[in-house]
């Protein structure tokens, strides 16, 4: 029942054609020709979504492997914050928000979840500056936060994420000359192949690090700390891209699997209607012939 109700909607979204009602009991049945055209297009879509699912599945395993090492790297790079007890000083400077999304769609609520978290953060911190990776989040966020966007990047992580790419991005962000107290990296954290969490990970500026309560325990020179800030920004951006990529591929796989399943159900329904109406036409023709013959 539920499937039937959702079918026409899916169909119209997928093909862009007006949904034809193919309820079995309806009188104004679609003609045979219409149904067969429809059937063909739906099976083509099913083929496409199925192959997209296959591609996404192979990419998930690869992306997951990259993500595992990136997570180890990111955790060990940011362990210093826990040891020094660095925290964000809300008043002292404006925060920078780095949204890590991508260019590709058809992967469920990945990108809108990022934009939602970002909007929520921006409403609490209206003075924040925005750096956006990927066209999807850019398209969604530039509608109401155009003024805050400082820099955007397209075609991030076209293949597998690399550290060099992340370092270049971090460099570009720093080149814009924005002074920030904390850079908040917003990305989708990979939980499992069916779940992700949108998280905000802070990268503290060296000023914030200098003010942290337990830094005095460490032997450190000022320029090293400044370099550390830049290095950590690159590392965390890389971590975010890697996790985001893995979550995106996993979500894409799930989305494509669902689409294939829906298309399959639709094909079944359409085939049934097609055969029924074919038979109905034959019966009608027979009746015509027989009544004609009897009248003679």
């Amino acid at each position: 029942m539920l499937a039937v109700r959702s079918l026409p909607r899916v169909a119209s979204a997928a093909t862009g054609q007006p949904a034809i009602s193919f309820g079995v009991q309806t009188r104004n049945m679609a003609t045979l020709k219409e149904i067969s055209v429809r059937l063909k297009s739906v099976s083509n879509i099913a083929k496409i979504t199925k192959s997209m699912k296959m591609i996404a599945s192979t990419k998930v395993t690869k992306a997951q492997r990259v993500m595992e090492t990136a997570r180890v790297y990111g955790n060990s790079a940011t362990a210093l914050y826990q040891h020094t007890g660095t925290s964000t000083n809300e008043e002292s400077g404006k925060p920078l928000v780095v949204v890590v999304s991508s260019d590709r769609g058809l992967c469920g609520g990945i990108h809108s979840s990022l934009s939602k978290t970002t909007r929520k953060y921006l409403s609490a911190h209206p003075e924040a500056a925005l750096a956006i990776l990927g066209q999807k989040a850019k398209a969604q966020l530039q509608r109401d936060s155009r003024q805050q966007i400082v820099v955007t990047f397209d075609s991030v992580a076209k293949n597998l994420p690399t550290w060099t790419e992340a370092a270049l991005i971090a460099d570009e962000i720093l080149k814009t000359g924005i002074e920030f107290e904390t850079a908040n990296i917003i990305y989708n954290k990979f939980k499992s192949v069916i779940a992700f969490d949108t998280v905000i990970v802070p990268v503290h500026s060296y000023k914030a690090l200098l003010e942290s309560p337990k830094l005095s325990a460490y032997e450190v020179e000022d320029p090293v700390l400044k370099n550390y800030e830049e290095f950590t920004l690159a590392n965390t951006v890389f971590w975010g891209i890697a996790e985001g990529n893995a979550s995106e591929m996993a979500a894409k796989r799930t989305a494509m699997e669902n689409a294939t399943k829906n298309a399959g159900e639709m094909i079944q329904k359409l085939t049934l209607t097609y055969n029924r109406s074919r038979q109905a036409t034959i019966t009608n023709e027979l009746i015509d012939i027989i009544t004609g013959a009897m009248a003679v």
Partner: protein
Amino acid sequence: MYRYATRVARPILRNVAARSYATDATPAAGKLLLNFALPHESILKNVEATQVNLSSTEGDMGILADHVPTVAQLKPGVIEIFSSSDKPRKVFASGGFAIINPDSTLNINAVEAFPVEDIDFDAARRAADDATRRTTSAPTEQERLAAKIELEVYEAILATASK
């Protein structure tokens, strides 16, 4: 040359460690836990080591357990890892950060690293010559600086070969 520096550094650093031991009220872990990660590979994860030698921008350091907490930027150079169970490992790292935490964990984050025995020194020599040429002949200032950094890395690689 490098050996000599670490040999000199070792007793000094041991003193530093001992001093921090007394002043800092950190619980004595007694052993050094090492995490050595690259962006695309984690080389060592929570591995117990007796000593780690590395070269930072402030000089060569030998790190033992209960070393004073430090944030150090790595120079291109060899990281030597000694552990009681394994034979010593020598890894060449191009740069990154080493952070010694109060709980005697050492986090090394490098950008790129290779075991010393995997390095082709002839290729390094050729690349060093090429980089030397570019330090003067490259068209822009930025490229010349990049070549200088490259040369620094290759020279560090070649320095490990001559030992």
